[in-house]
């Protein structure tokens, strides 16, 4: 008990307490979620299709409020926080969407630069990091291309570059390697682990077993029918070395 009590005081970037979510008057798609994500942790979110992975990610990146329970992010209770208070927290979260969510009429450069500009960076502060990031994802020569002219894999890389450009505290990725080849998948995983080593908490929803097995030390969150499968209690009380 003492050990458990000490562990629960370890820094957590996200804490879910009896969280449930339903859309409209439908059945709950997420229920009784109780877990903590340790600061600088690396998590894979798995589960069958329809288990609620994307809904859980939406709660994490503040696109959805829970219908019950409490969510603390970055040490703040945000489940009922006024909407005006959310933008600063959203700026600390990078999101890679399954459908990329790139703005079609903006160039790859402008799409990647968006988080920096929203945060108030000047054009001088934007130019270098964005060029560097595009070069890193192998799109240096496609910076002025618009998303409709990019392949699926290229769009995904732009989406990933946009998600990590401002070094978020929390990176949430929904099937980030779904449209890239194995070589690019390795590079992206390398990027995620590098960010993780710098202190970013990474949550990756994936079916890619290879990706999971290639990431040493990552924790696994498994969802089934909207409920967390956490028989070891590890998510509720992260081990000290991870936290």
């Amino acid at each position, binding site marked *: 008990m003492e050990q458990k009590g000490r562990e629960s005081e370890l820094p957590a970037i996200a804490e879910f307490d009896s969280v449930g979510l339903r859309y409209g008057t439908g059945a709950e798609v997420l229920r009784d979620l109780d877990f903590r994500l340790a600061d600088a942790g690396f998590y894979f979110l798995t589960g069958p299709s329809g288990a609620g992975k994307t809904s859980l990610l939406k709660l994490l*990146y*503040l*696109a*959805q*409020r829970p219908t019950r329970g409490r969510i603390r992010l970055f040490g703040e209770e945000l489940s009922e926080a006024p*909407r*005006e208070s*959310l*933008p*600063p*927290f*959203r*700026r*600390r*979260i990078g*999101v890679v969407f399954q459908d990329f*969510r*790139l*703005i079609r*009429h*903006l160039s790859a450069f*402008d799409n990647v*630069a*968006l*988080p920096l*500009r*929203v*945060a108030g960076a000047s*054009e001088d502060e*934007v130019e270098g990091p964005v060029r560097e990031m595009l070069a890193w994802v192998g799109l240096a020569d496609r910076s002025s291309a618009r998303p409709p002219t990019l392949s699926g894999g290229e769009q995904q890389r732009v989406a990933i570059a*946009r998600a990590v450009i401002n070094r978020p505290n929390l990176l949430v990725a929904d099937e980030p390697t779904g449209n890239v080849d194995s070589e690019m998948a390795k590079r992206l995983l390398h990027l995620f682990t590098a960010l993780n080593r710098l202190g970013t908490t990474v949550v990756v929803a994936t079916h890619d077993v290879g990706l999971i097995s290639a990431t040493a030390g990552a924790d696994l969150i498994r969802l089934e029918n909207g409920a967390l499968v956490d028989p070891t209690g590890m998510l509720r009380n992260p081990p000290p070395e991870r936290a």
Partner: protein
Amino acid sequence: MMLGWLFASPADRRLLGGSRFRGPTPWVIAIMSFSIMIIAATGLALASTASSLGQAIQARYALEVPNGGQNLDVLVATLKSAPGVVSVQAVPESDMRKTLRRWLGPAAESADLPVPALVNFDIRPGTDVGAIGKRLQSIAPTARISAHRDRVAPLLRSMRALQWLAFGLVLLLSAAAAAAVVLAARGALDTHRFTIEVMHGIGATDLQLTHLFQRKIALDALLGSVVGALAGALVILALASGASFAGELTGGARLPAIDYLILMTLPFALTVLATWVGRTAVLAALSETL
């Protein structure tokens, strides 16, 4: 800076895409602005005319003698010598007969016709008209004094009613322009819903997003207002410069300089109104999202 949103960076301008001044909004506002200019100018001209007419007849009275002018010279002399009377003009009998001819035809020229006498006179403020009347009635008992303002009052009332009607129409057209801007803002939000979702997702505030739309609305409104106002100004100038058809419409009324100044501010007032309404509509719509 309060007007910082007007000077968006090229990157911010690219966010909404599309060419500037596309869509019907500038043209709807131009039509409203044109109509507002014309109606406002008409209202101001009516107000100016009513005011001039009211001032001109304020101190003017008419002396009527139904039985003709046997004592007319005495009456005129009495009037001229009365305290407070500034000027006296007797209407010539020939003019009275000319007026009567409209109703009576050639019979108006008959020597047997008792033509009433009419004398217009102006007084200084504070003059006792009753005392003047008593002096005149001692000479001609049937003589009657009436104030011009009492006779013209219905006309002035109509002119003032029309002036308020014009003012009301200006307000209605402004409200219609504002409604058009609200519809345009909602349309723009629908068109750019995806961009808004993405921007919100990466931490953009409502105000950051609103500024993008507010700038576009302000530029559209300014273009429409100025184009409409310029067209309206051309028509007004044509009327004011006495074009042949203008005299028919205005009765020779002219606008004072202050009224021109008011008309010149209208397109900018309309732009400010449209921008404020657009901004409010966008903020309200964004507040319905998370």
